[in-house]
Structures are given as structure tokens and as C-alpha cells.
């Protein structure tokens, strides 16, 4: 007879427990209640959703169809209102009474709301679930938000919103941020990094009242009288286990629902897992122990002996650009000693707390590459007396076999979690390796380990190394893709030295493992070949990403955006009229000015592209290449034409540069700007190539960025005349085209080869580089819109239209 299992709560713990249960082939008839109207998603990934690095769909771990395929009866959006343990029944919100053989609590926790005056105003929220995240995402740039709480959750909320342009202030009651995980010095570095992201941080700040207007939050008042205006107030000060239902059912409850080592509550037929649980005095908020609990609960339900053991925990902050690690206990105490390492210039800080030759705690900021090794020392209580002198420098400085960093990984048990984002244990990775996944990519695609935030990549490689022994070589540089073991640099060298002028030749000579490459290597090879052999190689549209194949940007709904070129940012009333007419004629829903001084027509249907292009061409405009890994814009200020500070004709130089460089394909997009004076109105110092005009000439600098990374350019050279500036820019562009790895912006390439090398090459090979650039431009400086309107318009139409066929 199949037993009835009722689970209350569809969170990460019960999701994992059901997975373990079904993996083990358990014969339970499962009914799942969840107060939230949905299945299980990876709650710890809400931060990347907030910051826009992931979408909600990408963090769903168990959707309705998963439950369905495992025969689980889902009652989403329904609460349990009562439990009768004597009769072994639960009562649902709608009055249904269901009986159970086993009951599992996974009720999670509630965010703690400080009962400040005004805490019930509209716009005061916690950071707990998808609804809260959505509220923060909907806030929009230029709005103000106050986050109360400078802990892990509060800072992730603040950084996520700041990334979306919200004006964020963090209010923290303690003297430094994340005081439970960090010491003061690391807290200071973290604060500095957050302030650099534009976040205002107030520590030692006591909130006294939330002020509102018409029931809506308006500001937070601190006890020193300061008022912090806000449109949204997020309280992220902690969580409390949700124990009400368990308490009402008469189970033993302390801070959380009491469970024993088998996750059984004070009632032998009732189990509990996750954040609602109290085990041996501790409650749980991190994912690793919660997955351990899920495994133990599943085994208990299968009548397999298992025991939950609390382990050392470590913390990493999921905020891009803040590399931070903390583990163990680093409080001051009798008999404890510190080893501290600081490198202010690099923003690196490390502190180890030692007690009786054992590492008790570690805090690392700025460079956390050795964190797994230190964590291993803490967990294994390794005697460090022999290596104390060099301990702080990490495993690389420890000689001899016993200090092999792999030893720590080898000693990990099979159930040790390696990838926190996806909850992948060492054992699952070992199993994947045993069934043929012998490199990082294969492990990633079969287990999803290291596939999300990627911080565990090094650890996954170490598991590979430990498991495969000599068969695994930690890759010195990543290969282009699974089709080859060669790196981008190797392949570029082969193409030049062996004079490989076709893709087939590259596949043959470099030993490609696939018949015709893949979506990763083909676009790279296509670029390398056309950059190196402009006269011999024929561009392959089928090896280009759709944007470059169809010369427009694909949008999320499959429509495209069209951006005509505006040389140096200059346009005319006639051009504007033509753009407006085109927008009307093709029903363009959104007309937007881009960050690069151009007009973007968004939402054009793929079939209409040739027609809208023809219209824009007829008005004298050409493709803006806004879709390309090529020259995009040359942004300008008005320079001497109108500006009282302008030193040179910056608009004129911008137009000249754009007319010389347009159409050129480059390893990644290429953006330029020319500012007429050091006030830098065109923001030339965060472009790939920037020119600042000064009285004595033109300062050319390279390697700026304002995308995933924000970087300032570095000076390449200063020249006295416009012509020399144009020549130098052509030379450095060509050098970049000939040498950089596909999809590396100039700054990444510059970091690899060094600015000095670039200067030297431009200096000595300048004219030759310019000559090669011109040869390439003689082929590629053309308007792809006009070309496609003339020769390929028909390709944009459906192959056939059966929609008129009668469907009897």
C-alpha cells in the first residue's frame, strides 16, 4: 500500500528532498502545499535576477511540469490552516481534510520587520521572494531607495538596484558592514567598493521612524534627525523561522521547529527541513546545510539510517566586483593570534585567526582565489605550525607534498557541496566524470555545476584533477569551444603561419572534432579569416550571429531594431523627417535616442527590414552597424564650432574618423569619442579609443569601457595634427584586429599584451598597419543595407506561406 506524504512548502529544501526521494525510487503518494502560487525556485539567485544578470525563468528549479512528471499533486497558492496529529490529518484553507502517513514541514522563514513607526506604509517591503524582487526591479532609474540592513541580503539588494540606476542608501546599525562575517578592515574595503558603485552607506545609523504621505513611504528618519527620502524602503535585517503552524499543532518549538539528527520533530511521523528548523540550538539560512537536511529527511522517509551533522560554513557575497570571502570564527579571544596581509594599492586584504596552530577563521577581500584552501584548513583543523611563515600567501607558497592544495579537495566527502547555486555535490561531479565528462565544459553541461555564478569553477577543476589524476590537465588557457583544444591565440597563430585562408582549412589543420564547428567557434574563425585575408577570404554569413547576418539587432520578441548612421552625431531636419516617416510607415513602436548619439527604431518586423532600409537609404542614410562587432559610433562634443572652451574642431574630427573607419569589422564592438577640451563632454575616456583635443594637439588614449566593466582609457600618444591622429587610430585599430581574441574589447587585449607593446608596434609599424587597414576597408567599407536590399531582400520573406491554405 503506497503511503501518503504531505509536504508543506515548495522551497529549496523540500524541492531537494523530493528530488532525493524520487531518485531513490520512493513509493510515496505526495501532495505538496505551497502558500506562494508557484513551484520551487532558487531563492539565493534572486540577487542576480534583481541586478539583471539572470531572469526569473532561469532560476526555476522545479516547475509545475516537473512535479507533474513525478506524480506530485500540487496545491499551489493554498495554505494548510490546521493539523490534527492524533487523527493524522491536515486541513487546507478551503476546508479539505487530507490524511497523511508522513508529514514534512518546509515552511521556511519570515523576514523580520522592525516594528518602527510607519513600517506598515505602502512601499515598505522585505527582500524575501519574487514579489519583493519585482517591486525593486520596477522602481526604475533615478528613484530613491533606502535599504535597512548592511548584511549579505541588504547589500545584494542595494547592489542589484544600484545596477539598475536606482539611487540607493544603505542604513546599517553596526559600525561596519556584514559585521557577522567580516572584520572592520574588510568591512571598510567593502564599503569603499559599494560607494564606488554609487551606493550611499551609513553605518552606526539608528532608524527612528518611517515617514509617509497619503499612506505611501516618503523617507526614513534616523535618530539624529537626518531624513533620507525614498520611494521604496527595503528591510533586510534578518529572518525568523516560520513556526506558527507547527506551534499550533503542538510540536516542540524553540526558535525553530525542533528536530533530531534524522530531521524528525517531536512527533515521529512529522519531519521538518530548511529554514523553519532548529537543530542542536542552531537555525539555518544558507543553502548548503539545508540541502544536507533535505538528503537526510529523504533517507529517513526511506527508512535508511542517516544523520544530519552541522558543518563549518563559508560565505561569499554575490555582488559583481566585490570579491569577498569569510569562513569560521574570527572574533578576538584569549589565546588567538592574527596574521594580516594588506595591499592597499590592489585593494587586497587577508586575515587569518589562529588558535593553537589551527586556523579558526579567515576573512579575504579583493583576492579570494585561495579561499577553498583556507576553508579546508579550517574545516580539517590542519596543524599549520610548519607553514606559518608563508601561510598567509596561500597554497602556492607552500612547498612539499603534504601541502598539496588538491589534498583538501580529495579529503572532501562525496556529499560536500561544490556548486552552491545549483546545489551540486562532489559525488555528483565524480559520477559525471565516471560516465565520461572529462573536462570542465562537460561537467558543466551534465551537472550544471559552475554554470551559474562561476565562483566554484576552480573547485570543480580540482575535483576533476583529483578524480582523473594525470589524465586531467588544468587548462592553462581555455580552448575556443568544445570543437577544439586550441586557444583563440593558437588558432590565430596557425591561420597566419600556415596561411589558412578558409574555415575548412582551419578545421582540417587544427584538428577540429566536429564536422563544421559550432556557434562559438564559427563566428570567431570567420572574423579571424576576414581580418587576416581580406582579399582572399569570402565572408560566411552563416557563421555570423543573427545581428550581423541580418544587419539589425534581434530583440527578445524576435523583432529587430534599426539604427541609421549619424556621422559624428550630426543630423539634419531632412534626415529626422525621413526617420520619422519610416517610423510611421513601418509601425515602429519605440523610437529611442541611444547612448552613442543616434536614433534607434525598435520593434521592426524581420520581413520589413529591406523596405525600411530602402527608405532610409533613399534619404541618404546608411546602416549604423549598431549590431556589429565593428565600428559603432564616434561620439563628439561641439568643439570650437559653438563651445567657448573648445580647443579643436572635435565634431569635424569625429566625422572624419567615422568616415574612415566605418564598416570595419573588429574583434568586439568598437566605440570612439572625440572631446574638444579636457572637460570631456563626449566622455572620450571611457571609450575603446578616445581623443581629447588640447591646445597643442590631440591626446589619443585607448582601452576604456563602460559596459560589464568600467575602465578609464590610458594615453597612447599625443600628436599635433588631425591627420596624424587619424593615422594613429587606424594603426591601433588594425593592430587590435590582427591580434586580439574574438570578443575581447580593447581593454582586455591591452591587459594581455601591455600598453607598452601596443605603443611600440604603432610606433614602428604604423604605416604598414595603416596600409593593411586600407586594403581591408577597400572590401568591407560598404553599406550592407543597400547591398541586401538589392541582392537579398527576398531572403527576408517567408520561404512559403501556407496560412492561406484552407485547413479543412
Amino acid at each position, binding site marked *: 500500500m503506497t503511503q501518503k506524504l504531505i509536504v508543506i512548502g515548495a522551497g529549496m529544501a523540500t524541492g531537494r528532498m523530493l528530488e532525493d526521494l524520487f531518485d531513490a525510487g520512493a513509493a510515496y503518494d505526495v501532495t505538496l502545499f505551497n502558500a506562494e502560487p508557484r513551484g520551487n525556485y532558487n531563492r539565493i539567485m534572486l540577487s542576480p535576477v534583481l541586478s539583471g544578470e539572470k531572469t526569473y*525563468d532561469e532560476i526555476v528549479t522545479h516547475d509545475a511540469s516537473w512535479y507533474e512528471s513525478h506524480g506530485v499533486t500540487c496545491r499551489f497558492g493554498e495554505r494548510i490552516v490546521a493539523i490534527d496529529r492524533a487523527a493524522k490529518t491536515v486541513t487546507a484553507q478551503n476546508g479539505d481534510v487530507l490524511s497523511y502517513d508522513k508529514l514534512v514541514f518546509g515552511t521556511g522563514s519570515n523576514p523580520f520587520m522592525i516594528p518602527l513607526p510607519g513600517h506598515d506604509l505602502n512601499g515598505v517591503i522585505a527582500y524575501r521572494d519574487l514579489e519583493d524582487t519585482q517591486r525593486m526591479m520596477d522602481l526604475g532609474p533615478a528613484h530613491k531607495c533606502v535599504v535597512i540592513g548592511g548584511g549579505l541580503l541588504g547589500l545584494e539588494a542595494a547592489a542589484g538596484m544600484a545596477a539598475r540606476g536606482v539611487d540607493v542608501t544603505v542604513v546599517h546599525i553596526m559600525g561596519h558592514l556584514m559585521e557577522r562575517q567580516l572584520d572592520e578592515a574588510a568591512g571598510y574595503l567593502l564599503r569603499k567598493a559599494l560607494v564606488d558603485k554609487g551606493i550611499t552607506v551609513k553605518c552606526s545609523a539608528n532608524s527612528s521612524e518611517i515617514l509617509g504621505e497619503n499612506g505611501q513611504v516618503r523617507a526614513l528618519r534616523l535618530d539624529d534627525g537626518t531624513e533620507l527620502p525614498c520611494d521604496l524602503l527595503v528591510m533586510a535585517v534578518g529572518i525568523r523561522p516560520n513556526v506558527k503552524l507547527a506551534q499550533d499543532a503542538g510540536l516542540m518549538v524553540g526558535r525553530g521547529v525542533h528536530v533530531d539528527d534524522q530531521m524528525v520533530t517531536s512527533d515521529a511521523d512529522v519531519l521538518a527541513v530548511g529554514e523553519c528548523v532548529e537543530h542542536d540550538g542552531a537555525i539555518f539560512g544558507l543553502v548548503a546545510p539545508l540541502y544536507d537536511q533535505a538528503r537526510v529527511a529523504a533517507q529517513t522517509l526511506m527508512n535508511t539510517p542517516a544523520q544530519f551533522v552541522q558543518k563549518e560554513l563559508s560565505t561569499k557575497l554575490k555582488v559583481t566586483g566585490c570579491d569577498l570571502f569569510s569562513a569560521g570564527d574570527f572574533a578576538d579571544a584569549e589565546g588567538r593570534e592574527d596574521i594580516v596581509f594588506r595591499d592597499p594599492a590592489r585593494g587586497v586584504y587577508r586575515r587569518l585567526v589562529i588558535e593553537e596552530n589551527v586556523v579558526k577563521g579567515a576573512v579575504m577581500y579583493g583576492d579570494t582565489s585561495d579561499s577553498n584552501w583556507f576553508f579546508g584548513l579550517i574545516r580539517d583543523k590542519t596543524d599549520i605550525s610548519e607553514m606559518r611563515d608563508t601561510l598567509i600567501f596561500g597554497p602556492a607558497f607552500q612547498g612539499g607534498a603534504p601541502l598539496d592544495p588538491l589534498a583538501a579537495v580529495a579529503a572532501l566527502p562525496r556529499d560536500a557541496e561544490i556548486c552552491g547555486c545549483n546545489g551540486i555535490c562532489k559525488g555528483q561531479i565524480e559520477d559525471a566524470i565516471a560516465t565520461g565528462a572529462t573536462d570542465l565544459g562537460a561537467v*558543466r*553541461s*551534465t*551537472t*550544471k555545476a559552475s*554554470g551559474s555564478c562561476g565562483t566554484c569553477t576552480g573547485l570543480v577543476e580540482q575535483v576533476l584533477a583529483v578524480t582523473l589524476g594525470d589524465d586531467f590537465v588544468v587548462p592553462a588557457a581555455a580552448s575556443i569551444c568544445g570543437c577544439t583544444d586550441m586557444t583563440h591565440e593558437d588558432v590565430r597563430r596557425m591561420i597566419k603561419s600556415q596561411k589558412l585562408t578558409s574555415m575548412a582549412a582551419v578545421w582540417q589543420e587544427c584538428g577540429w572534432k*566536429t*564536422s*563544421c*564547428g*559550432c*556557434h562559438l567557434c*564559427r*563566428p570567431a574563425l570567420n572574423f579571424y579569416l576576414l581580418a587576416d585575408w581580406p582579399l582572399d577570404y569570402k565572408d560566411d*554569413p*552563416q*557563421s*555570423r*550571429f*543573427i545581428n550581423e*547576418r*541580418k544587419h539589425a539587432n*534581434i530583440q*527578445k520578441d*524576435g523583432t529587430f531594431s534599426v539604427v541609421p548612421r549619424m556621422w559624428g552625431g550630426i543630423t539634419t531636419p531632412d534626415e529626422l523627417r525621413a526617420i520619422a516617416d519610416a517610423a510611421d510607415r513601418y509601425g515602429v513602436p519605440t523610437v529611442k535616442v541611444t547612448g552613442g548619439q543616434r536614433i534607434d527604431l525598435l520593434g521592426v518586423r*524581420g520581413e520589413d527590414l529591406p523596405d525600411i532600409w530602402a527608405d532610409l537609404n533613399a534619404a541618404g542614410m546608411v546602416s549604423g552597424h549598431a549590431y556589429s562587432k565593428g565600428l559603432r559610433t564616434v561620439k563628439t562634443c561641439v568643439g570650437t564650432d559653438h563651445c567657448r572652451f573648445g580647443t579643436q574642431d572635435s565634431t569635424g574630427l569625429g566625422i572624419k574618423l567615422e568616415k574612415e573607419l566605418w564598416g570595419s569589422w573588429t574583434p568586439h564592438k568598437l566605440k570612439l569619442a572625440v572631446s574638444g577640451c579636457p572637460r570631456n563632454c563626449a566622455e572620450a575616456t571611457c571609450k575603446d579609443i578616445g581623443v581629447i583635443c588640447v591646445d597643442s594637439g590631440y591626446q589619443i588614449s585607448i582601452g576604456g569601457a563602460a559596459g560589464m566593466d568600467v575602465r578609464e582609457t590610458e594615453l597612447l600618444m599625443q600628436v599635433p595634427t588631425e591627420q596624424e591622429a587619424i593615422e594613429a587610430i587606424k594603426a591601433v585599430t588594425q593592430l587590435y584586429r590582427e591580434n586580439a581574441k574574438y570578443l575581447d574589447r580593447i581593454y582586455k587585449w591591452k591587459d594581455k599584451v601591455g600598453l607598452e607593446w601596443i605603443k611600440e608596434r604603432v610606433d614602428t609599424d604604423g604605416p604598414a598597419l595603416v596600409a593593411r587597414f586600407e586594403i581591408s576597408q577597400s572590401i568591407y567599407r560598404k553599406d550592407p543595407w543597400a547591398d541586401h536590399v538589392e541582392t537579398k531582400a527576398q*531572403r527576408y520573406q*517567408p*520561404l*512559403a*506561406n*501556407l*496560412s492561406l*491554405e484552407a*485547413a479543412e
Partner: protein
Amino acid sequence: MNDWIDIAPLEDVPLRGARMVKTPLGCVAVFRTASHEVFALDNACPHKAGPLAEGIVHGKSVTCPLHNWVISLETGEAQGADDGRVATYPAKVSDGRILLDRAFLRARATAGVPA
């Protein structure tokens, strides 16, 4: 018995490329591989309904242009760790012409496959 319908000459679909065919219930993508085989699939990735006809075709797979899911042209299954499937339809080349199965396309219409 298949009920083949002549769609277009093979060369109208680029080598390692795709075109779409409009039907009363959304678009079907017709793919041509490097070895001149043709495949017909719903033109909507199981992930976010990305237009597969705009993807890069490699081997007997296509990579969705929106988020790089790799879909098998033979089975319609998402490859690697991704889960999901696209409906596939009989397709063949005969005398240099691409043929699709009318009955299957109609069955699709009645099954109400989303566009």
C-alpha cells in the same frame, strides 16, 4: 502515406541556414545542413520562444539566437543540461525541391501548437 507538399527549391534555403514557412498557426523553420539534409521544426525555442530560423546551424543542431540553447534538428530536443523539446515535422528533398508533410502540418494546427 505521407501527403507531401512542395515548398520551394532547396537552394532557396542557405547552406547551414534556415528559412521559415508561415502556417495558419505560427511559423515552421526549415533548416538545411552542410550535407544538404532538410529538417522542419516549430520556429520557437522551448526556452523563450526564440526564432530558431535565425540561429547558427552546426552539425545537425541549431543554436537559438536569444540565449544559446542548442536544439537537435533530428529530435527537437534541447542539448546539454537544458530541458525542453520543439515539435519536428517530416521533411525531405526530392529532385532538388523541399517537401513538407501537409497532414502533419495540419495535425499541428489542430493540436494547437503555439506560434
